[in-house]
C-alpha cells in the first residue's frame, strides 16, 4: 500500500485499524519531500523536529483512545503543510519576504492552535508570492514553486506552495489564504480542492495581513470530503479576530436535483480559453443531467471588479505593510543615520518588487487629491458588486463558473507584465469583494494541465457548496 496517496478519511481509518502509525505516515511524507521538493520547491522550511514530535504524541493519543475504546479527532496524526504567511510558534514565518527572513513567531495563529488541539502533524511552511501578492508564486523572494503536473509551469498563487505540496504528495492537506483567489487559483492550476470560506467564518488571528477586508484562511486538500474535515476543524468564532462570526458548520446532505444553478453570462464573454470553457460547460451539463435547473444570470459589474480590487487591496496593503519599519522585528538596515533613514532603507531593502508596486499604488490611491477618484470610488463600485450577487442569490442556490480564464502558464511568461497577472483574478476576486464563499474542484484537464470548476455560494452556505461539490467531484471522475 502506498500510504502517501491516501486521503484524510482513509488515513484516519488506517491509523484506527493499526495498519500504520502516525510516525510512519509522517516519515513517508518527509521522505517524499526529500525526494521531490528540490524540483517542485513547495516548501520554504521543513519543520521535521516539530512533525516527528507531534507524530509521537499523536501515536500515544491514538494508543490511549484505543485502550479506552474512544474515537480520536479526524486530523489526529495526519501530516499537513502550512502557508508561510500563517504563524507557527517558535518557527520562522516569512510570508516569502526578505523583510521577515529571520522572523520567529512568538505565538500560534488561531487556526494553528486548533490544528494542534486536533493532533495534526506539521511538516513545514510552504512558499507563496511575497505577502500573498500574486497569482503564480513567482513573486516569492526565495524561490519559484513549480506545477507538479508540468515543471515548466506555475502552480498558481499565491498559495502555490500549499497547492503543489498537496498535489505532489508532499502533504496530505494544507492551509492557504485567499484574498482575491489565492486558494482557488492554485487549487485549479494544481488539480486539487481549495475552499475560500465566507469572510468571517475562520479566524485570521496570526495570518500575516495583506488586505484585511478580504483575507480569509482556508483548506487545500485532495478531495472535497477532506476539505470539509479541515474546514470544520478551523472554522468558528475567536476572541482575537473581531470580524470572526459565531458560526457552527453543520453537515447536511443537499440533493442536486431541483437545485437552481446560476451561470453568469459575463463569465463566458471574451477572454476565456475555449478548452477551459468546454470543461466548465461539461460540468454544467452534468449537473443539469442530474436534475439541477440551470439559469442564466447577469453580474453586470464584473468588468469593474479587477479595477476595484486592485485599488482596494493595495490601499489596505500599504497600511498593513507600514508595520515593517526595521524597529520592532524583521530586517533592519545597520548603517542608517537617523530614524527616518532606518524606515526608508530597511523597507527599500526588505520589500520585493510587487510589494513595492502595491505600496506605491495604495499610497497614491489614498493620498490627498486622489482619494475620492480612486479609493472612495472603488468602495462605491464595490457596493454595486455586492448588490449584483445579492440579486443573483435571490434567484439561484449556487453559481458555477471557471476559476481562471486560462490554465497554468509558463514560468516567466507574464513576469514583466503585472497587469496581465492581475487579470487572472477576473472570476475569483468579484465574489471576494462581496465576502462570499467559493470552492475550486478539479473538473478536467487540457493535456497535463488541470482546470478547476468554481462553485460560489451565499454567505455561510459552505455546507451547500461542499455537499454539491462532493457530488460533482464523483460525477466528474
Amino acid at each position: 500500500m502506498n500510504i502517501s496517496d491516501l486521503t484524510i478519511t482513509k488515513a484516519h481509518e488506517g491509523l484506527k485499524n493499526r495498519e500504520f502509525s502516525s510516525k510512519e505516515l509522517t516519515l513517508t511524507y518527509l521522505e517524499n519531500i526529500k525526494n521531490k521538493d528540490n524540483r517542485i520547491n513547495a516548501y520554504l522550511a521543513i519543520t521535521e523536529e516539530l512533525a516527528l514530535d507531534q507524530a509521537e504524541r499523536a501515536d500515544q493519543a491514538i494508543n490511549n483512545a484505543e485502550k479506552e475504546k474512544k474515537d480520536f479527532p479526524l486530523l489526529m496524526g495526519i501530516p499537513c503543510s502550512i502557508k508561510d504567511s500563517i504563524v507557527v510558534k517558535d518557527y520562522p514565518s516569512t510570508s516569502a519576504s526578505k523583510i521577515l527572513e529571520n522572523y520567529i513567531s512568538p505565538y500560534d495563529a488561531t487556526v494553528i492552535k486548533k490544528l494542534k488541539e486536533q493532533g495534526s502533524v506539521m511538516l513545514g511552511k510552504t512558499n507563496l508570492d511575497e505577502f500573498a501578492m500574486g497569482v503564480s508564486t513567482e513573486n516569492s523572494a526565495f524561490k519559484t514553486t513549480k506545477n507538479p503536473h508540468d515543471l515548466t509551469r506555475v502552480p498558481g498563487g499565491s498559495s502555490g506552495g500549499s497547492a503543489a505540496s498537496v498535489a505532489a504528495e508532499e502533504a496530505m492537506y494544507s492551509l492557504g489564504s485567499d484574498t482575491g483567489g489565492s486558494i482557488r487559483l492554485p487549487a485549479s492550476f494544481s488539480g486539487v480542492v481549495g475552499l475560500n470560506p465566507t469572510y468571517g467564518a475562520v479566524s485570521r488571528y496570526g495570518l500575516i495581513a495583506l488586505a484585511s477586508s478580504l483575507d480569509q484562511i482556508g483548506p487545500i486538500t485532495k478531495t472535497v470530503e477532506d476539505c470539509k474535515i479541515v474546514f470544520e476543524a478551523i472554522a468558528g468564532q475567536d476572541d482575537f479576530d473581531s470580524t470572526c462570526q459565531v458560526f457552527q458548520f453543520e453537515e447536511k446532505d443537499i440533493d442536486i436535483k431541483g437545485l437552481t444553478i446560476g451561470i453568469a453570462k459575463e463569465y463566458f464573454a471574451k477572454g476565456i480559453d475555449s478548452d477551459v470553457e468546454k470543461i466548465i460547460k461539461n460540468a454544467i451539463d452534468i449537473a443539469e443531467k442530474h436534475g439541477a435547473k440551470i439559469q442564466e444570470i447577469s453580474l453586470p459589474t464584473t468588468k469593474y471588479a479587477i479595477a476595484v480590487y486592485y485599488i482596494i487591496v493595495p490601499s489596505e496593503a500599504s497600511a498593513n505593510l507600514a508595520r515593517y519599519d526595521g524597529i520592532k522585528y524583521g530586517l533592519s538596515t545597520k548603517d542608517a543615520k537617523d530614524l527616518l533613514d532606518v524606515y526608508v532603507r530597511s523597507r527599500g531593502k526588505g520589500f520585493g518588487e510587487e510589494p513595492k508596486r502595491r505600496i506605491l499604488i495604495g499610497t497614491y490611491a489614498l493620498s490627498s487629491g486622489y482619494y475620492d477618484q480612486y479609493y472612495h470610488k472603488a468602495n462605491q463600485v464595490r457596493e454595486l458588486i455586492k448588490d449584483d450577487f445579492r440579486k443573483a442569490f435571490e434567484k439561484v442556490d449556487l453559481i458555477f463558473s471557471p476559476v481562471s480564464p486560462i490554465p497554468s502558464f509558463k514560468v516567466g511568461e507574464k513576469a514583466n507584465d503585472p497587469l496581465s497577472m492581475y487579470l487572472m483574478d477576473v472570476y475569483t476576486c468579484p465574489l471576494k469583494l462581496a465576502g462570499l464563499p467559493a470552492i475550486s474542484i478539479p473538473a478536467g484537464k487540457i493535456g497535463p494541465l488541470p482546470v478547476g470548476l468554481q462553485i460560489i455560494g451565499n454567505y455561510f452556505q459552505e455546507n451547500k457548496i461542499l455537499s454539491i461539490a462532493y457530488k460533482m467531484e464523483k460525477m466528474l471522475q
Partner: protein
Amino acid sequence: MISKEKISHIAKLARLELSEAEYEKMQKDLSGILDYFKLLKQQKTQVKTGKKNVDTKNRIRKDEVIMKNAQLADNILALAPERKERYIKVKSIL
C-alpha cells in the same frame, strides 16, 4: 506617464527607498495600472459605502486583563533588532 517627481513624493509618504532602476520601472508600471483604473469612470455611483449584506458587525471581547506567560514579552522583545535592557532602541529622531 506619471512623473518621477510624483513617484518620489509617494515613495516619501510610504517611507520607501527606490533605486534608479526601480523609479523607471514603477513609472511605467503605475502609469499602465492607473490608466486601467479609468474604467471605473464609466460607472455612475451615488451609493453610500459601508452597507451590510450580511451581519458583519465586529465582535469585541471584554476589555479585561488576559493572563499570558511572562516569557511571551521576552520573546517579542527578542525580535527587536536593537535593544537596551528591556527597551527597544531607535536611532536619534532629530
